């Protein structure tokens, strides 16, 4: 019999075995080596051998144990009023013992509690009950010894226990105990062996012992009270065993491609409960390992498998160094990421493992990820990735204005899927927008905002589109839960057999909350192109400018110059009222619109040859087109409010400084078109337009400011009148562009309608 503790011996065996008898592939060998280093650093605790035995008793719950400790301590200190708690504790432990598989601790506790109760009974004069409890204590725990405090200064109770033990308890002495860490059971109950002996109640008992790698042993022995019995206990070695621990717990162990069990954790609640992160499992013992070479593999989801070949050469205990499974990892390399951009993976901000020259590296476990890189809603990038172990994915990040895609409303599952796929396809190919899938994050929010599907679908009348929905609230809710310069909410047709879907599109605040409605038919082959076109509109800020007003007259064959703007290209070229424009770039013209269309497609600075006729005869005039600021007319230009607003927001930082005011005015006009009068007025007030008295400029802004204020309500009437008065005072002010509609007459009419000037 060896006096080396079993586990140490095994450890020593394990160490020795590292010289190995194990053949491993090169790559695995490297992994194993690394793990061994880690294990040594972490000072692996010795595993508990008791868990080897099947059917191990369940230890007392920590809370229960603490409670029992408290009761015992109180009884020992003779505190009053403990009868109820004492009896309850006795009852609880009795139930545990009667259940058949109590821990030795539970038996010892029960015996002690019975001892304290016996003391109380005997103090109270109930000798019979006291003796009964003491007899029971000895039966439950034959090694029970009365605490001197139970004697209460007299030896009566101590002596009584001694007498009971002499009458009821015998001793079994195990000779040649081998292996010393075997598990002994008496009558099926687990007993710890102290100094090679155990005390048992007198009678016939079944003794059994087992230990992995050994043949189980069992015998029946008659034990007499107050006598010692010697029993030789030497188990016969039957096979080799292998002990191993894993990190994390829960790994499946395969030997020769057959599953042989799983490691379990040893959390706070005891064996079998999840381990704390980063700790190893309790040991798993593999038995019945035949001699020879075996393949051992440890698998755990999300981790790379550990695989070694081992050679079992003799029937001894083997122990493998702690196996720390390496998590599966893929590598994500993001290129062109600006320094202050945020990277989110599945909605969670993620710090890179490394950052070098705009390239960020992330290590990700295998799985599907939604990547989002952004610098605010104007610069976003998203991609869905499927990462595999050891895979490297390189992504070139291109930040574009973001679109928040929301879940389809009023659609059945099939249509909703089709819509989502359609939008994914369209915007994945877009070089202008990044569509960010917000379906999961906002579905519940939008539902809670009181959207009514029939209302959202609207009727055939265009005007009914907005009725019945609080778009401002919807905008707020969407902005709060989803990033993006614009939001897209698909609304399916009520004809669920068809695939007609309206896309409600609105910008994030402070854009107008009323959405655009873009109708698409999923079965239409051109739907993608149309949608792309709808989102690809550019906003012009300048247009070629000639500086004439033309009219078509029955009294002339060709368009007639009605007015010439002073200082304009036409003025410089000598065009005058009454001139007929016969041709433009040698192409005859019969109507004024043909000239306008030709100018619209010309380049700024281009020289046009005009054929001109008047009472003096024919001549050719060369005129170099200048440029005029141009203001969009949201409806006439069919300029989608939401898309346009978003475009304008982006455009403001890109256009030359002198064009910024036109972009701002465009945006205000879009707010007006959406009926957001106060917001529009606020935006208009902030515009610093050029003070030029001819063409578009300050008067243009003043006119629209007047319109917005007048529509905003009576509160703003006086301000509106002031704005109209300023606009009316500029006789050459124009709307839209330098050749556009005159402002002054309209402003005067507005003043008249407001009662500000006499009719």
């Amino acid at each position, binding site marked *: 019999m060896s006096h080396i503790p079993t586990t140490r011996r095994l450890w020593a065996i394990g160490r020795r075995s590292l010289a190995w008898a194990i053949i491993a592939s090169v790559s695995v060998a490297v992994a194993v080596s690394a793990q061994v280093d880690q294990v040594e650093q972490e000072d692996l605790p010795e595993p508990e051998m008791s868990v080897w035995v099947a059917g191990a008793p369940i230890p007392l719950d920590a809370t229960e144990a603490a409670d029992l400790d408290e009761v015992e301590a109180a009884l020992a200190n003779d505190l009053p009023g403990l009868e109820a708690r004492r009896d309850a504790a006795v009852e609880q432990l009795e139930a545990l013992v009667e259940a058949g598989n109590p821990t030795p601790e539970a038996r010892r506790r029960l015996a002690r509690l019975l001892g304290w109760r016996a003391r109380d009974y005997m103090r109270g004069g109930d000798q019979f009950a006291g003796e009964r409890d003491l007899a029971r204590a000895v039966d439950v725990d034959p090694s029970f010894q009365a605490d001197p405090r139970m004697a209460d200064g007299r030896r009566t109770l101590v002596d009584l226990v001694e007498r009971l033990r002499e009458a009821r308890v015998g001793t079994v002495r195990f000779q040649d105990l081998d292996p010393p860490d075997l598990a002994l059971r008496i009558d099926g109950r687990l007993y710890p062996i102290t100094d090679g002996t155990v005390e048992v109640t007198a009678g016939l008992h079944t003794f059994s012992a087992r230990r992995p790698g050994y043949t189980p042993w069992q015998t029946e022995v008659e034990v007499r009270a107050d006598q010692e019995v010697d029993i030789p206990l030497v188990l016969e070695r039957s096979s080799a065993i292998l002990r191993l621990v894993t990190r994390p717990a829960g790994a499946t162990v395969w030997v020769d491609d057959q599953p042989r069990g799983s490691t379990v954790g040893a959390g706070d609640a005891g064996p079998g409960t999840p381990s704390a992160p980063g700790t190893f499992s309790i040991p798993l013992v593999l038995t019945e390992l035949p001699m020879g070479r075996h393949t051992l593999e440890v698998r755990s989801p999300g981790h790379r498998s550990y695989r070694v070949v081992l050679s079992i050469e003799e029937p001894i205990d083997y122990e493998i160094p702690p196996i720390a499974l390496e998590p599966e990892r893929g590598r994500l390399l993001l290129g062109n990421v600006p320094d202050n951009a945020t990277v989110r993976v599945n909605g969670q901000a993620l710090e890179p493992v490394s950052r070098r020259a705009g390239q960020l590296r992330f290590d990700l476990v295998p799985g599907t990820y939604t990547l989002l890189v952004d610098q605010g809603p104007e610069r976003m990038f998203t991609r869905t990735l499927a990462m595999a172990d050891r895979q490297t994915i390189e992504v070139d990040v291109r930040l574009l204005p973001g679109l928040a895609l929301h879940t389809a409303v009023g659609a059945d599952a099939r249509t909703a899927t089709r819509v989502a796929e359609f939008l994914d396809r369209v915007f994945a190919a877009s070089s202008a927008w990044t569509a960010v899938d917000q379906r999961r994050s906002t579905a519940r929010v939008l539902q809670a905002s009181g959207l*009514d599907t029939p209302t959202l679908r609207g*009727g055939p009348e265009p005007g009914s589109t907005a009725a*019945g929905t609080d778009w401002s609230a919807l905008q707020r809710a969407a902005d709060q839960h989803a990033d993006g310069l614009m939001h897209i909410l698909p609304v399916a047709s009520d004809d669920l057999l068809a695939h007609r879907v309206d896309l409600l599109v609105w910008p994030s605040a402070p854009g107008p909350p009323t959405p655009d409605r873009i109708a698409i038919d999923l079965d239409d082959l051109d739907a993608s192109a149309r949608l792309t076109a709808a989102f690809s509109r550019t906003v012009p800020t300048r247009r070629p400018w000639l500086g004439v007003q033309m009219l078509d007259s*029955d*009294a002339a064959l060709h368009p*007639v110059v009605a007015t010439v703007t002073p200082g304009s290209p036409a003025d410089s070229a000598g065009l005058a009222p009454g001139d007929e424009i016969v041709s433009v770039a040698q192409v005859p013209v019969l109507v*004024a619109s043909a000239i306008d269309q030709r100018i619209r497609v010309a380049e700024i600075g281009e020289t046009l040859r005009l054929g001109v006729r008047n009472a003096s005869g024919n001549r050719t005039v060369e005129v170099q087109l200048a440029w005029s600021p141009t203001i969009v007319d949201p409806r006439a230009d069919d300029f989608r409010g939401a898309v346009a607003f978003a475009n304008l927001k982006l455009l403001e930082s890109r256009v030359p400084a002198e064009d910024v005011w036109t972009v701002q005015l465009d945006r205000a006009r879009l707010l007006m078109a959406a*009926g957001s009068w106060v917001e529009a007025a606020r935006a208009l007030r902030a515009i610093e337009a050029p003070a030029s008295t001819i063409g578009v400029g300050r008067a243009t802004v003043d006119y629209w400011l007047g319109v917005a204020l007048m529509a905003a309500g009576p509160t703003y009437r006086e301000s509106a009148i002031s704005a109209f008065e300023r606009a009316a005072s500029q006789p050459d002010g124009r709307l839209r562009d330098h050749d556009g509609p005159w402002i002054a*007459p309209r402003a005067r009419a507005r003043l*008249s309608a407001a009662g500000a000037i006499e009719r």
Partner: protein
Amino acid sequence: MSMSRMTQTKPPRRALRGRAVTLGLVALLSTWVWNEGSRAQDPAAARLLDEARRLQAVDEAGALEAYDLLSRQFPDDALAPKAVLEIAELSRARRDATATERALDHLIERYGRSPEAAEAYRMKSEILFEVARNEAELEDARATARRVSLLFGPDRYPILPARERALALSGTIGALLGDPGAVADFSAVIENDPLGPHHAEARLGLGRSLLARGDWQAAIEALQGLLDLAETTDATNGVVPAEATLAPARALLSLIHRRYIRPQTGQPFFAQAKVFAPALGLEQASGVAAAANGEVVVTDGGQPLVALVDATGTVVARTATRGLERPFWGRDGRPAALADDGLVRPFGGSAIRLDDLDKDGPLKGLLAVASGRIGGHLAVAKSHSGLLRYAVGSWPPKTVIEAGKQDLVDLDRGPEGRTYVLDKRSGSVRRVDARDRVVTVVQGTWKRAWALAIDQLGYFFVLDRGEARIHVYDAAGNPVTTVGPAIGSITLRAPNDITVDGSGRLVIADAKLPHLVRVE
């Protein structure tokens, strides 16, 4: 709805007016009733609406019944207001004023915040406008039209055709009332919905109103924009303007060209004279009147003849009626002419009767008649040397210019509802504005002033038979030029009547020429 029918529907009209006062209140009260967000749509209601629309083409009564059933069985359904609106429109088409009014009232009271209620207000204003007899009633119609904008703003309904249509109507009424605010109404239509169905109508109205205010440059932009729209739009990218708006716009632009622009280039006011409609074979032309589109009606005192000539000079219709003279164009777009004992509609149209002030029977000795600004007629007659205004459904006619002190021989309607009369005795042209204020705009030295014509810019033309010459004055009464007796190769011998078409061309009827003369 024709004029004659309008007279018959006077009693319901009064009821409409009475209710119009309370429409705003009703609409406000009904907002709590109508909540679009809670509307359900019953498939049965949808089927019923479908059936009603199918029936509408073949069985109006059946369609009405189906719409009525829908509105009664499914009053809370989304389709209910549509059904009620259909009832109103169908009833209006069937000239059932009572049913129309009932349906419109129901729509406004029960579904006051629905887009269909906006249509109801708009229809009410149209009906009120059609039957209006005076300025107060016009104002009433306009107030109802404006209610659409007040109750159904773009914040709630970004696009609402009823709103823009009502605004256009408000502008039209405003223009009739001589209100500069009409420009604001028309501008708002254009600014709010530049692609809408009322854009063209609003542009034309805006152009006219701006012209009336003297803003002819701005008017050019409005009118030319309309022509450009026709050139650049098609059915796929917008509403194509109707010829009914294009022709007047083209005419007005031509007029501006002739009056304002061409003179700036040093060209004469009139560049040429042409023999016009020689195929008429006139024996003794007694009168001529041009419509805005250049169409001309001519009467002949030497033979039984009244003829219609299009703008190219082609005779498109003639009737053999003797003794007619001084034709004019009625509000229904058909000509009328003076006969010895009243007015004749030689090419159809409802009869027009102007009774004598003092005795039973028609006013005799008519010298000139013109359609009134708000329906009715203006007349001068030998038997009553003043200017009389006959309003629809009202008696007696109003004497705008007292008889006795003058000898009025002709009259014509100018822009903005102004009336011009020619006083032979004092040798003057007098202008009566929309509020019946009379101003002498020119004092001439004519030998025998006989006929008067006004163009849409307020230029007026006085025919002096004594000199066989036409005197031209601008809107302020400044002489511009004279025409005749020799105009190019044509010599006027006995000019009897003159007229100016919409594009400013002067047409002369000469009793001794077999054709008309058109000067441009």
